[in-house]
């Protein structure tokens, strides 16, 4: 069985496990095996976006503003593109959007860090153990990501603008306290819109903090 044949029936395999031939290919092919693992992980994460409510107009206006600001949508395209967006698809997760944004920033940062580290390692190992230099990074562990990311962000700031490190550290602590309190509110009142908004705003702070920190490492 080829990879193309395997991937053509991927959805069936993920849902039902596949037949013996497909199982055999999955065992032998690292590419397809990784692909299936990744898709299963994404599917698991997507289950977290359980239906709770429709997004407010504000959320979509915010997304629209961001898209326009970034030049991804032109004025003439506003109505058609955003107007036809299936809102209900995103509806369950409106309060998770900034959380997702913060995670995306974090993943981007990790990718950047890993790539930089990998490049440095490649250079160092060019006359020696090249195999070690291209060893894959360990898989992301989302549970401990926050703390790891904070440390990496602070390291970036320290490397590029050491004078701001202490200020970033203090602000990081403030934002983390905000997130912790907002999480507590959501935990004790999971159906409360205000609590979810507070958590969203707390993560918005974190996303901004990361974004501003990373700007210092851009050329």
């Amino acid at each position: 069985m080829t990879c193309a044949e395997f991937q053509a029936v991927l959805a069936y395999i993920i849902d039902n496990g596949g037949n013996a031939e497909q199982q055999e290919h999955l065992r032998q092919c690292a590419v397809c095996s990784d692909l299936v693992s990744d898709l299963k992980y994404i599917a698991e994460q997507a289950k977290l976006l359980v239906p709770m409510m429709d997004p407010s107009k504000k959320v979509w206006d915010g997304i629209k503003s961001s898209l326009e600001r970034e030049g991804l949508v032109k004025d003439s395209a506003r109505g058609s593109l955003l107007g036809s967006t299936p809102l209900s698809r995103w509806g369950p997760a409106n309060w998770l959007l900034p959380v997702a944004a913060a995670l995306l920033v974090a993943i981007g940062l990790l990718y950047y860090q890993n790539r930089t580290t990998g490049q440095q390692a490649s250079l160092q190992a060019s006359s020696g153990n090249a195999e070690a230099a291209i060893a894959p990074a360990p898989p992301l562990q989302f549970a401990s990501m926050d703390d790891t990311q904070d440390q990496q962000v602070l390291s970036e700031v320290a490397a590029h603008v050491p004078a701001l490190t202490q200020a970033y550290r203090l602000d990081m602590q403030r934002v983390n306290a905000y997130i912790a309190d907002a999480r507590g509110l959501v935990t004790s009142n999971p159906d409360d819109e205000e609590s979810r908004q507070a958590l969203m705003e707390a993560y918005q702070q974190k996303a901004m903090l990361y974004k501003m920190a990373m700007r210092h490492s851009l050329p």
Partner: protein
Amino acid sequence: MITSMPRGALWVLVVLAGCAALAAAAENRKEFHYNLGPHAAVSVMNQFGGVTITPSSDSQVGVVALLRSTKVEVDATQRGGRLELRTHFLQNATPDEGRVDYELRVPADTSLTVRSTSGPISVQGINADMTLEGDAANIVVRQTDGGHIHAHTLSGPVRLEDVARGDVEVITVSGPVTMENADGRMVTVNTTDAKITYDGDFGDSGDYTFANHSGDIDVTLPASASVDITATSEKGGVSNDFPLHALAHTAIPLTQGRSFAGTANAGSSSVRLRSFSGKIHVKKK
């Protein structure tokens, strides 16, 4: 008079004059002019130093950059209706040596992107979209009409004065936010640990959200304000001396001393005030 001065004082004067001359020589002034056409976009990326932007009387963009040392230069790139100004470090420099102060005069319909770590950033009389960012930058926006205003800082204070009909998003971590006579369709202020002060009438048909973790939220509004207000502070408490009509059904559960809700006049603008441990005060002007 000089001849009557003590000899020591005369030497001090000479040395001071020499220092002033050296300082003047070190400060390098650059001036640029561009024709970008209508609805142009200008961005300024500055590490240390201020950026001041005011409207020009013609269609030209005028830039004056004051460089405090020869360790930095200004890269200016025009591509069509877009101008990018960037401070470029030629070698390692201290914040003083790397400081560049920009003064821009741009057509009032020019959209802006300004970043300066230390700031200050000041924009006045520009009626277009603007994104203003700085870690510790003091950001001031005055006399704008329309456009989206995005102001992001960590510790830098943000002040908006006489802002009309715009969409406003202000996010700071510990920088206080002050808004005077500012209204818009959608106004969001989000801080972690800083005071939010609003003095104005909230316009008409706007959607306002002021939220923080700690730090007070002070709102002062005239009796004529047409608002639909909800206020909640989980641990900081709320107080209100503005006459509001109670609502039969509220969007938030009301708890004495921790939340209130009500409308005034037609209630055309929605105002949400939310804090975790800050105090929320709503006062009549």
